[in-house]
């Protein structure tokens, strides 16, 4: 037996060595391109294979959504790529995690456009301690620039003859084209990325030069806000509720004449739509060009993989001739100077325009702090375009929110007392268990070992899938995560949440505000679920009702549709400008409602969606319970003289109670944690006020600079609340044997 194990182990070790040997001659390339860009890249790789038959190249297209995470986990584990393509804004993170190393040889920098080189230069990455970033060596680069992405102005040539040179000109054209059902200009107002051209064009900036503090509260920022306000509220040439997909649809249908968008938009334009692009106009107020954010796609060498073959492949992929292929076949705005001198590329006015726009761009910041800015900035833009706050006030509010979110991590604490306490607790529990063990415990355990052997697989599965993540979640709450560091902070996260000292109780970031909203949300939903479910069950239970089977099926349908789909559909229905709900209101002569502009309408939209999803469960439960009531009881009550209401109170209610109570308790817990609806329908708007505890926990972890410890502490508190709730309600459902006949 033991010898078998040893041999097996040796075999595995040998095999893995062999496979490593096999890999040595191979260069692995990862990217997340799709469609045309992918095909063009593959062609350049094929060319390389043809010219270097002795170097094996393996190309892996990784889905975009999981790309960054895969790189982070695969490269340190040794089964990642040798070369990979990534956007430069991830550089800070990649350097900190030591995923990459600078380009080994000096770059032939004259080959590339300066603007694409700059963000990749060693030393240009903000917010990185000098040691990790390496000395700022001139001419050294973290990667080869391949292509870039930025925003330009798309316009329909059937509507716009010459693109505007200034924003005033743009507004004039837009104004002339705007009429009911059509807008002059559109872009995704909900994202700061699309506001950035006006922001930087007004002279505002995001971060200080060292990348360590935010600079979003400025006259220039307010000026960009005023411009937004003018577009949306004063001139009314931009729709306020058009998100990405809707902008595309409107452009294709001719319902919008100009669109601010990036190169990816090209593939979304329908055939037959006449369009062109132009560089963004000059800002009339500041007399500076509008400056969108720039992302450079670089080719990076994974840490420790800088072999000659790897560098050889990299240089082939970024060569001028390869760039030409990518530009012509993939439609990519490439980083090579020479590509734009090529007559065929020059004939593509699109690429030329992107190149021209490139000169007026702001590289996407790489400092970690920038991740904290988006949520507050988006919120500020939403407030301005709703007219709720003056631009200046809105940016000030955003800045203060950033300050709150960017608080220094709690003081590090010694873990020793906690570890000791935990050990003592464990020992205590063990002692109690030993002391109170049933008689002949060990003997009985041994006697039943066959039974335990059967339980073992499930027990292992439960431990791995339930217990371990749960305990890790609990433990995580005692740590704080900062950029590149983790520290043990004891109860600091819990204390911060419970005392809510940093914000007033009425602030949406306050735990108590969110708790009240969550309770309100739960109560409103469960009441409506039960009310509507009960009413429908009563309607559908009489035996004489024709076609009740059909009605039952129809009414159960909402339940059978995945809830995120329903959530997205309802989000569309509640869209302020294009949604069906407002269309009906207007048709009835009422004024449309900005559903996500105020707390109550947004809350109502969430509740309506969740009621739609939740009433069938109660209806089905109650239908079952109603059908189990003996007809005799109703007959007896009728003979006794009870009217319909008295029969309902005297017979129906007490009879369905035992079935209803567990359903209500279960429904309460589901609703309390109903992440999907809140996250997708109101998205917490306005200002995060409609967020419930779970979505708030999510935001702390994934929107607000990765405060995983804080989020874990939040989850633990949610867990404790629900445990308390079920302890209380368990008494209510405890079997009351008397009540049964």
């Amino acid at each position, binding site marked *: 037996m033991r010898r078998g194990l040893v041999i097996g182990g040796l075999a595995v070790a040998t095999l893995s060595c062999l496979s490593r040997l096999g890999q040595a001659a191979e260069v692995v390339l990862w990217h997340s391109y799709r469609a045309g860009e992918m095909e063009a890249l593959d062609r350049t790789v094929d060319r390389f294979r043809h010219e270097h038959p002795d170097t094996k190249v393996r190309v892996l297209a990784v889905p975009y959504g999981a790309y960054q995470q895969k790189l982070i986990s695969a490269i340190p584990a040794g089964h990642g790529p040798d070369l990979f393509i990534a956007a430069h804004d991830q550089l800070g993170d990649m350097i900190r995690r030591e995923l990459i190393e600078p380009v080994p040889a000096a770059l032939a920098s004259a080959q590339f456009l300066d603007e694409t080189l700059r963000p990749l230069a060693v030393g240009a990455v903000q917010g990185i301690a000098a040691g990790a970033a390496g000395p700022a060596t001139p001419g050294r680069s973290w990667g080869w620039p391949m292509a870039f992405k930025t925003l330009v102005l798309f316009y329909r040539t059937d509507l716009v003859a010459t693109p505007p040179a200034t924003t005033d000109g743009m507004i004039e054209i837009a104004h002339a084209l705007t009429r009911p059902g059509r807008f002059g200009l559109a872009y995704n107002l909900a994202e700061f990325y699309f506001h950035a051209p006006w922001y930087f064009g007004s002279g505002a900036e995001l971060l200080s030069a060292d990348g360590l503090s935010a600079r979003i509260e400025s006259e220039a920022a307010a000026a960009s806000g005023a411009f937004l306000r003018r577009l949306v509220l004063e001139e009314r040439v931009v729709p306020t509720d058009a998100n990405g997909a809707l902008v595309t649809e409107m452009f294709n249908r001719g319902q919008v004449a100009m669109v601010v968008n990036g190169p990816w938009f090209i593939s979304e334009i329908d055939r037959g739509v006449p369009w062109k692009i132009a560089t963004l106009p000059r800002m009339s107020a500041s007399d500076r060009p509008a400056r969108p954010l720039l992302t450079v796609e670089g080719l990076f060498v994974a840490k420790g993989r800088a072999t000659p073959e790897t560098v050889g492949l990299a240089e082939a992929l970024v060569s001028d001739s390869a760039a030409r292929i990518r530009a012509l076949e993939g439609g990519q705005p490439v980083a090579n100077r020479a590509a734009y001198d090529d007559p065929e590329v020059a004939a593509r006015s699109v690429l030329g325009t992107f190149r021209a726009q490139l000169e007026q761009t702001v590289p996407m910041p790489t400092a970690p702090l920038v991740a904290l800015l988006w949520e507050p900035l988006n919120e500020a833009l939403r407030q301005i375009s709703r007219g709720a706050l003056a631009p200046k006030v809105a940016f000030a509010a955003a800045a203060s929110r950033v300050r709150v979110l960017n608080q220094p991590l709690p003081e590090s604490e010694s873990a020793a007392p906690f570890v000791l306490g935990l050990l003592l607790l464990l020992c205590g529990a063990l002692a109690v268990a030993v002391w109170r063990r049933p008689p002949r415990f060990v003997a009985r355990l041994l006697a039943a070992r066959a039974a335990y052997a059967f339980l073992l697989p499930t027990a292992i599965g439960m431990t791995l899938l339930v217990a371990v993540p749960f305990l890790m979640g609990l433990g995580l709450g005692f740590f704080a995560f900062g950029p590149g560091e983790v520290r043990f902070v004891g109860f600091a996260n819990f204390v911060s949440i419970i005392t809510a000292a940093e914000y007033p109780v009425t602030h949406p970031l306050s735990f108590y505000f969110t708790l009240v909203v969550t309770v309100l949300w739960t109560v409103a939903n469960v009441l409506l679920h039960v009310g509507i479910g009960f009413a429908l069950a009563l309607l559908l239970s009489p035996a004489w009702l024709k076609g009740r089977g059909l009605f039952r099926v129809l009414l159960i349908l909402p339940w059978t549709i995945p809830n995120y789909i329903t959530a997205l559909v309802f989000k569309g229905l509640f869209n302020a400008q294009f949604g069906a709900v407002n269309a009906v209101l207007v048709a009835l002569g009422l004024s449309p409602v900005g559903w996500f502009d105020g707390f109550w309408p947004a809350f109502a939209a969430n509740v309506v969606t969740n009621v739609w999803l939740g009433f069938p469960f109660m209806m089905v439960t109650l239908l079952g319970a109603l059908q189990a009531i003996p007809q005799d009881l109703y007959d007896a009550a009728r*003979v006794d*003289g009870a009217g319909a209401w008295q029969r309902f109170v005297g017979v129906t209610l007490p009879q369905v109670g035992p079935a209803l109570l567990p359903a209500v308790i279960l429904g309460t817990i589901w609703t309390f944690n109903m992440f999907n609806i809140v996250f997708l329908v109101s998205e917490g708007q306005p200002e995060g006020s409609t967020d419930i505890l779970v979505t708030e926990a999510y935001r702390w972890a994934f929107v607000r600079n990765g405060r995983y410890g804080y989020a874990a502490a939040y989850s633990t508190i949610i867990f404790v609340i629900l445990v308390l709730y079920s302890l209380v309600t368990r008494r209510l459902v405890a079997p009351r044997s008397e009540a049964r006949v």
Partner: protein
Amino acid sequence: MAGIELDRISKHYGDTVILEELSLAINEGELVVLVGPSGCGKTTILRMIAGLLEPSRGRIRIDGRDVTETLPGERDIAMVFQSYALYPHMTVFENVAFPLRVRRLAPGEISRRVNEVTKLLGIDHLLGRKPAALSGGQRQRVAMGRAIVREPKAFLFDEPLSNLDAALRGRMRGEIAGLHRRLGATMVYVTHDQHEAMTLADRLVLLNKGKIEQMGRPLDVYREPKTRFVAEFIGSPPMNFVPVEERAGSLAGAGFAVPLSAVGVKSGVPGGRLLLGVRPEALKVATSGEALPTLKAEIDWIERTGSDGYLYARVGPTSIVARLSAAAGQGLSPGQRVDLSFSQARLFDEVSGRAVDDAGVA
């Protein structure tokens, strides 16, 4: 108290006819028992009186007032269900008080009447319990209490005792009879059980396939069944039927002949196939020199229950049963031939099933 009158009521479910033109008048203070085989429409009649079912045609009157369209609660009638239909979440007190509460009586009045009624039924020590904590008999009493407490114009009972064991059934039967005497109330009582029917009824109504087969005082129905169906349904074990033919003033069967006078008929007997109906308790083992008419039979076997016994025998090809007193069966054994004499008999027409009596075919 009030009389109930069913005036040519019919009940159909689609094409299925359950009752056809049934008329029945129940007098004030009378206890009428409806008996009949399963599915003959007893419950249907009761539910129509209560107002839980609407007749397809015909009128129902209570106390002379037409209530055909009146709601059950307004007919002032109480019903006791076979399942008792007690409200499971209510205590005994609340169950009994329910009809009074529905009528919004004063709380003092309610508890006075509930206490009175529960004392009468001997369940006053159970007032705080819920039905699940009661025995079958106790539940039965609570159901009765709930009916009595409102002092209704009439009571309807739908097989109220069928869920009880034999001993308890006997006792409850006695109690219902006593209750009827004491309250003097109009009662309609449905049962399967002929014993209950015989002992309780002022008047027995025998139903078959939605029609009244015969009605009358229980003993009259027992003695003078008008049809073979009634004769078989009432009496246990059922009446024996032996094929006979009329031959010159006497009835001849397999190996025997009896005079027409033995069945109380003088003349005018129709020809064709007849049946001689003799109740098991009318048969006796004949002693020699007996004056009574006799049948010649061969014994199959004898069953003794202690107090009495049954003798199973064949007359020709026909099986019959005779009830024996404890002493009478001594010395008999299977295979033996005996003469069985009878004191009373009835003649039926085999084809129509109707009794043949003085007036010819009834």
